[in-house]
């Protein structure tokens, strides 16, 4: 079965709507009850980041940031202050004297976004403006590497900040170098595909969503630009609670991953369907929901459309490393119970 139906109700019409997993779910969007449509489907969306920025064609981060921030703005009645780490998102959105941001936005340094956001939140609390909410955002380098100490400090203090990590699995802004979020075997400028063990080394890297959970903070989730309904829903969920919250969003980078620019959503979906990027939610350190894989695929399907993994297939097939990567996916599938015959704790289903 290569197309699986997802059902929900048009509340007013009392009619079952089927989402076909063919893209961004926009097919079903306009048939939905208004409350169930995406924030982006509303003409009242805030356009936190406007068009005209300098992101590359097919940039997953620009897409993820727009959906995430507009959802946060809707949840906070437009009262959002964003703090940004140094990185692509900062560079492509604010070449002085231009800016793409229609919300108050502050960039300080590469490694301190979480701390700066803590300071903004403290000031708002003290100034009696706690209705204004704070979102911090950074790439995987600014989050899992150089900003990790500040992130952990913000978590353990349970500061009232929603931190969004846009994970494109490397330092793409500086020319595609390895980060601690780069997957094993991936080729980057600092893990070249040469030698007997080409690409990034096995047994390295860190799983920051699980480390975030270990802080016992109120809300942790993973999300993907392949399911923008789900991304918006998770941001909305996160905005319902106070305290430290973390959403780790997979945002493919055509430049760094070596994919064609119209494959961003497809490659993000394959990351999830292969089990390499599980989608889940956790509250106070416990997993409360995960998104089941609707159409399971071998990791190979995900890897072979990215030139950063080309050395696994050419000139000879590297069966040992392909099996090792499949084992990572299998472990995720088991850990998060991803191959089960239901549709998960999905708000769309619950609403129906």
């Amino acid at each position, binding site marked *: 079965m290569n197309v699986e139906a997802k059902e929900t109700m048009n509340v007013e019409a009392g009619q079952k709507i089927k989402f076909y997993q063919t893209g961004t779910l926009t097919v079903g969007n306009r048939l939905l009850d208004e409350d169930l449509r995406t924030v982006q489907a509303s003409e009242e969306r805030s356009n936190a980041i406007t068009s005209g920025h300098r992101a590359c064609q097919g940039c997953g981060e620009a897409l993820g940031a727009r959906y995430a921030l507009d959802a946060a703005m809707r949840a906070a009645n437009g009262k959002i*202050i964003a703090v940004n780490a140094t990185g692509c998102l900062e560079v492509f959105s604010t070449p002085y004297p231009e800016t793409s941001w229609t919300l108050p936005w502050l960039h300080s340094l590469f*490694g*301190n976004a979480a701390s700066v*956001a803590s*300071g903004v939140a403290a000031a708002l609390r003290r*100034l009696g403006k706690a209705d204004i909410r704070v979102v911090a955002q950074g790439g995987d380098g600014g989050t899992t590497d150089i900003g990790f100490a500040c992130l952990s400090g913000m978590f353990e*203090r349970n500061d009232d900040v929603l931190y969004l990590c846009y994970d494109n699995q490397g330092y793409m802004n500086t020319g595609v170098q390895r980060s601690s979020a780069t997957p094993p075997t991936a080729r980057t400028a600092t893990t070249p595909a040469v030698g007997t063990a080409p690409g990034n080394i096995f047994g390295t890297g860190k799983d920051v969503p699980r480390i975030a959970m270990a802080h016992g903070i109120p809300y942790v989730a993973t999300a993907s630009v392949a399911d923008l309904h789900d991304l918006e829903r998770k941001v909305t969920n996160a905005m319902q609670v106070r305290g430290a919250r973390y959403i780790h969003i997979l945002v493919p980078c055509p430049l760094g991953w070596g994919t064609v620019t119209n494959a961003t959503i497809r490659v993000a979906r394959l990351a999830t369907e292969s089990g390499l990027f599980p989608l889940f939610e956790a509250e106070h350190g416990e997993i409360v929901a995960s998104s089941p894989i609707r159409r399971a695929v071998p990791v190979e399907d995900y890897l072979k459309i990215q030139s950063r993994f080309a050395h696994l297939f050419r000139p000879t097939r590297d069966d040992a490393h392909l099996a090792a990567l499949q084992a990572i996916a299998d472990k995720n599938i088991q850990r998060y119970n991803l191959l089960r015959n239901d549709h998960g704790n999905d708000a769309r289903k619950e609403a129906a």
Partner: protein
Amino acid sequence: MKTPIQLTPPKGPVELTLPKARQIEGSRAIAEAVGLCRPQVICAYPITPQTHIVEELSAMVKTGELMDCEFINVESEFAALSVAIGASAAGARAYTATSSQGLLYMAEAVYNASGMQLPIVMTLGNRAIGAPINIWNDHSDAMALRDAGWVLLFAETNQEAIDLHLQAFRLAEELSTPVMVCVDGFILTHAYEEVELPTPEAVDRWLPKFQPRQVLDPAEPITMGALVGPESFSEVRYLAHRKQLRALERIPELSAEFNATFGRNSGGILRTYKTEGAETIVLAMGSINGTIEDAIDELRRNGHAIGAVILTTFRPFPYASVAAALKNASQAIVVEKSLTAGMGGPLAADVTLALANTSTPVYSVIAGLGGRPIPQASLESIFERARDRELPETTFLDLHWDAVNQAITKELSWTPHT
């Protein structure tokens, strides 16, 4: 304040009044001065010797002595100043304190705060920088970040440390620039001295409510910290320079206004001590000036025409004021607790530049590194040698030459393994 033990019961009605002056630790005095300025966000990370300041402030916030203030314990100095940056950008009066390695650990944020013109006030409890690790006082930390675009003020006494903090918040917020108040670690931070703290009402009149130049506000969204390319970067840097030059004009005005308000001559660019008719003038920053003044008194009694310049404002550097203060001297001696290895004394270099259009020689005396005591007798001996034209261009005060020579011999005898 602790209630004094009463040995005999008072007879008749007793009028209770707070003593005008109190004998308290320097850190406590600074904490109370900061508290009087009503900061709204304080972030703290412990490092000797500034720790007592934030300890006192944490207690003041917890007991309610300091109201309407968030006290945040962070995980590093880098985070401490970053929290202050966020708080300041969101419109709160923000304060932190650090020393030594802590200042270096936050170095990137130090430049960021001044680049974004955020009026944060930070106390620097001056301490040496390792390696070798050393927790005692010198000025290496301030010197390492002297060109980060902050106003740097040096206190001579704990009373001046109090007064400089009151002036620092005014200056920072009037000009929208960060200010660092440097106080000698241990010598001032841990010393119990008699000080006077003004009343809250007087400070409220002195320091108006914080009105940020720019603030993060959803009602009027702005972008702060944008990427600035070659077409505008020079202009941004020039404006930062201009603002520092404006600070140089404003600092003496504020000092005069402070004097008129509180009746104390504190702060300003520099002060002179017995420079009238002085052939030799000694210039220094911070608490060492007390010893220098004593040495000058002694030498003056013996007929030596010597005086001192106490430099309070180190950045922006007051070239014109330093040149004017030294213009009648036939020689200048700069005593400083810092050394740029391979160059010499950084303060002496600045003073030399200030005197570039004169023939006045500048002698550099490197003293008190890593907390080495600076005895009055050693200073007097140096000043006498200068009078007798026997002082070399650079002197390392009380250097143990035997230890130095031993290390040099060992180094010279080293050969690589074959």
